[in-house]
């Protein structure tokens, strides 16, 4: 019994189990209304999504009721819009009326209601895409553009104003991915510019009512833009040619004004050219003497930075007490480069431009030209030296600085010549000495190579002593006194140096610098063979200096000065000019006047040594 019962049960289970699984019917799942749309605000359609059907055939029904009415209506049309849809035609559609719509799924086991949805037809309008999209290329102007035109969807009644649509266009090149959007408003035409020549474009359009959803994009319309590159090309060609032309002009202008531009943009930095500052000296000097090399007197700045300007062309040595001697002993070869340099009344003193005595450019190639100048320059340097010291000591006597410079070290190359007076110089020797002196002066080397003479050795030695390592030291002692004695000794020395004919212009004649200024101070340009110191005129900063034009036979430093002041000296010029191998315009001053002036100069100058005195040294 039990066994049969179990067997029966087992059989039942076996039989019915599969069937139970296969036929698990259930009421249908809940459907959902997916969307309702109206294409023209006159009809609308609703679609729903069915739930599970529960295994049984399920039917769906849509019920709706309008606002303010409890009457429930069923969907009039299930077919027009397709599967799972309900179509409301014009008669059943009311605008501005709320519809409450529910979908019911029913099968044998039961039915299920969807969630109700409230709609107002006005707000569910989604029109059809615009129709008859046409795109044409307008080539009336030089640059073609696209004209896009379309029609509203035929169902939408825009004519009567029942529905107002706005449109939107999008364009892109065939190969691109990004669309270019354009809002066209209510118009049914649109122009697209800025086309690529020869490009293929795709155009689409869509519309939207003032209340509602955007329609789908219309089918794309393709258009090919013709090539208008040739027009572009000509324009570009013109532009290129024009710009190249402008560029060439600009380059040419730049080239013309390159220098001025360079100066404008990068103004030249004035070099550290300190007058009277010997770079070579500084380079060669020892550490201890660095400071002494730096001692510089108050140089009057000169306008000309030209190297040659620094040299004294003419020297008029001032010998107050021995004027007669001087005058009698006119330098015969007064190859005074009377090159238009006038000696002013006060030029007698320091014709040499003491500044220039200390050339900042030692060892320049122009030494040769200025060899002779050195002699006269020596006197200048002496004066200069005195001047320097004077500044320090504030001396103010009429006499030349008595450079008790022994204590101090005056940077004057004239000291080179201090021993020179002791010797009588052969003209040749003189010349060579001058040369040497000049070379020394210029190159800061005691023994200029290849020009050492016997005469010079001793002075050189003394020079060495005086100068020390590489800067000039004013020799003390008799020389000093000689040197420093107001002009007179120097004149004397100069006079004694009868052999020395400063006036003799050397081999090289320096052409007179143009525009000789009326300056007491003169740059020693060179000392000629005739031992004439050629002084180049120098722009005066003060009236205390004059340019030494040269030294004539009378051992008179011929100072050059522009202007008429020295007209009274013209007479002396005559005598002097005899010695001039080349006539100069400048007038030279008499020594006596020079004396006077020199004194003034001494007083006036801030201790500036009268170059004349200094320069006269070597001459003697």
């Amino acid at each position, binding site marked *: 019994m039990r066994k049969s019962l179990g067997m029966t049960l087992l059989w039942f289970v076996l039989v019915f189990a599969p069937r139970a699984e296969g036929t698990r019917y259930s009421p249908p799942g809940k459907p959902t209304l997916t969307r309702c749309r109206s294409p023209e605000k006159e009809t609308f359609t609703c679609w729903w999504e069915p739930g599970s059907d529960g295994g049984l055939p399920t039917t769906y029904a849509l019920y709706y009721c309008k*606002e303010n009415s409890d009457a429930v209506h069923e969907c009039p049309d299930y077919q027009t819009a397709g599967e799972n849809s309900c179509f409301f035609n014009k008669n059943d559609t009311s*605008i501005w009326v709320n519809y409450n719509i529910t979908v019911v799924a029913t099968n044998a086991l039961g039915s299920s209601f969807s969630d109700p949805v*409230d709609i107002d037809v*006005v707000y569910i309008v989604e029109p059809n895409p615009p129709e008859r999209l046409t795109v044409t290329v307008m080539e009336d102007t030089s640059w073609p553009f696209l004209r896009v035109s379309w029609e509203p969807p035929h169902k939408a009644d*825009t*004519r*009567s*104003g*029942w529905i107002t649509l706005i449109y939107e266009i999008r364009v892109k090149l065939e190969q691109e991915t990004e669309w270019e959007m354009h809002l066209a408003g209510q118009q049914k035409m649109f122009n697209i510019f800025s086309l690529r020549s020869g490009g293929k474009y795709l155009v689409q359009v869509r519309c939207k009512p003032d209340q509602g959803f955007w329609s789908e994009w219309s089918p794309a319309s393709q258009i090919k833009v013709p090539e208008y590159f040739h027009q572009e090309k000509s324009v570009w060609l013109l532009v290129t040619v024009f710009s190249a032309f402008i560029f060439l002009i600009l380059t040419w202008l730049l080239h013309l004004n390159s220098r001025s531009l360079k100066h404008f943009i990068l103004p030249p930095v004035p070099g550290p050219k300190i007058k009277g500052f010997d770079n070579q000296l500084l380079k060669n000097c020892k550490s201890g003497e660095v400071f002494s090399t730096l001692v510089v007197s108050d140089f009057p700045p000169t306008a000309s930075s030209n190297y040659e300007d620094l040299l004294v062309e003419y020297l008029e040595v001032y010998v107050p007490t021995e004027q007669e001697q001087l005058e009698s002993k006119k330098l015969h070869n007064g190859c005074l480069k009377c090159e238009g340099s006038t000696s002013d009344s006060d030029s007698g003193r320091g014709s040499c431009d003491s500044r220039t005595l200390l050339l900042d450019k030692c060892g320049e190639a122009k030494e040769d030209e200025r060899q002779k100048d050195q002699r006269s320059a020596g006197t200048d340097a002496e004066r200069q030296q005195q001047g320097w010291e004077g500044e320090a000591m504030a001396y103010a006597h009429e006499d030349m600085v008595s450079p008790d410079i022994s204590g101090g070290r005056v940077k004057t190359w004239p000291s080179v010549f201090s021993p020179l007076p002791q010797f009588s110089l052969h003209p040749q020797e003189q010349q060579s000495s001058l040369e040497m002196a000049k070379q020394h002066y210029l190159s800061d080397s005691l023994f200029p190579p290849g020009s050492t003479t016997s005469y010079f050795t001793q002075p050189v030695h003394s020079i060495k002593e005086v100068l020390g390592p590489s800067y000039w030291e004013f020799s003390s002692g008799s020389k000093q006194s000689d040197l420093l004695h107001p002009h007179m000794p120097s004149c004397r020395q100069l006079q004694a140096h009868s052999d020395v004919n400063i006036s003799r212009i050397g081999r090289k004649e320096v052409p007179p610098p143009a525009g000789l200024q009326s300056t007491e101070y003169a740059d020693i340009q060179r000392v000629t063979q005739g031992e004439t110191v050629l002084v180049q005129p120098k722009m005066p900063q003060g009236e205390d200096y004059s340019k030494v034009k040269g030294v004539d036979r009378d051992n008179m430093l011929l100072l050059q000065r522009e202007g008429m002041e020295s007209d009274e000296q013209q007479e002396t010029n005559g005598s002097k000019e005899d010695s001039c191998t080349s006539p100069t315009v400048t007038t030279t001053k008499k020594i006596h006047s020079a004396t006077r002036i020199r004194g003034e100069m001494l007083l006036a100058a801030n201790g500036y040594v009268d170059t004349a005195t200094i320069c006269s040294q070597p001459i003697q």
Partner: protein
Amino acid sequence: SNCKRVMFVLSLLSVGVSSQPITDGQRLFSIAVSRVQHLHLLAQRFLSDFESSLQAEEQHQLNKIFLQDFCNSDYIISPIDKHETQRSSVLKLLSISYRLVESWEFPSRSLSGGLRTQISSKLSELKTGILLLIRASQDGTEIFPDSSALQLAPYGNYYQSLGPDESLKRTYELLACFKKDMHKVETYLTVAKCRLSPEANCTL
């Protein structure tokens, strides 16, 4: 409104010229349409702001609320489909529009401060404009039944009598109804304007 009156006077003066009134009428219509469009947009914005400020649960309730209640302007019979609308005369459309706008003058004052300031003035201006249009289209043939304006809704004080606990519901209703009515007026005016335009094609 003064400007519109001036325009109306000008249009009356130029009645002799055939095309003038129509052009002026068109212009007035355009103005009215644009104004009502603006009001409609305002209503739309307010409603969406209000809905977004509500909780999810409250939003769910609103659907039911709206189903049960109705707008205060329901007493005004207006065409509810295109056919009806096109069947109606211009004057009828205009008068209905006028009444609709007018019906909102009172309830708009019960709105919150922000809405009230913006809507009230525009409503009154629109009302004046529609009145001008009515006068212009009447041409003395028909006297506008001003008495209808006095027919306030029987529920004129409907919104004012509500308690504070239902203010949320009422606000929503108010905004929704207002939005709907503005769209109605916009549609009517547009249809009337197109009806009066010389060209058959009304889209610009």
